[in-house]
């Protein structure tokens, strides 16, 4: 990515709206302020992805694994959203922006580097966080979004995930990593 080039960061929805989180996982009242403040201090334009989980299952949804979202119906829903997001990425690319995508690592839909699986989840609601098995894969939404990005030939300057749901998450370290990634 060129020094001094204009940058637009597409962020998973919940970085700007913690009210979209599945219950128990909102770490901030509304905006993840250290994250957004950092983006604006760096002069980045910020775009917000839609939240396919809230749009599909609502705000009172149960915890889910990748398996539970890996259905033809949810993937079709994600593909519909992806089309509009990639339209917006093309809009910025035509204006000379470098496009960066930042998802939420660990999420069954928004994970970029890691997501969560458990083939036994389903049926009568019961979930323990210990049974949410982290695996090195993308979540369903990111898989569909990446497929649309590639199909349309949009060039991403970078794509990564931030593991904000990890109890050991370190915001300062994460922001340093993002700065390195975006600035090259």
């Amino acid at each position, binding site marked *: 990515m060129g020094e001094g080039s204009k940058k637009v960061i597409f962020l998973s929805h919940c970085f700007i709206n913690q009210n979209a989180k599945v219950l128990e996982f909102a770490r901030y009242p*509304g905006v993840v302020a250290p994250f957004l*403040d950092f983006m604006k201090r760096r002069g980045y334009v910020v775009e917000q992805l839609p939240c396919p989980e*809230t749009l599909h299952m609502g705000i009172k949804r149960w915890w889910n694994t990748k398996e539970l979202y890996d259905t033809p119906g949810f993937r079709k829903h994600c593909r519909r959203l992806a089309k509009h997001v990639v*339209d917006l990425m093309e809009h910025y690319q035509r204006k000379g922006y470098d496009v960066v995508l930042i998802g939420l690592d660990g999420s069954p839909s928004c994970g970029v580097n890691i997501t969560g699986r458990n083939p036994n989840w389903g049926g009568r609601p019961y979930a323990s966080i210990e049974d949410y098995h982290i695996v090195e894969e993308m979540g369903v939404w990111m898989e569909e979004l990446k497929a649309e990005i590639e199909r349309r030939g949009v060039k991403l300057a970078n794509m990564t995930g931030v593991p904000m749901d990890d109890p050991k998450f370190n915001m300062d370290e994460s922001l340093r990593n993002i700065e390195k990634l975006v600035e090259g």
Partner: protein
Amino acid sequence: MEDRRSYKVVIVPDYALNPENYPHLPQHLKIYEGARDAGYGVIKMPPTDIPEESADEWVEITADMIEEYLNKGYKVAVIAVEGLPDKGVWFSKLVKELESRRTMPKILEISRGELEADGEQLAEKIKTVLS
């Protein structure tokens, strides 16, 4: 784990987070900062210069989010800004869509004068809309 959500959400124009896209308006982040400091979750609309058909889809997606939050008892407001095309939030279409669903969030209109004035008044106006 403790869930810290505020149960309060505002819909804002792109201008609120990306004023650099609107050089004819004051270049500050006072709307974003007001929403952030009030503890609101933010749903940002796309830039106002996207094609009309694309905007229609974003309006529908936004109306879906507003309807879901209101149905579940969250407080929701739309922040509409004077000086932006259709107030930066496709206000006419969004209101029409929400009326057809018989649901309506609070509306907070911000004038050009308020954008240019001392930020404290604007912050207070944003803070009280969902209090």
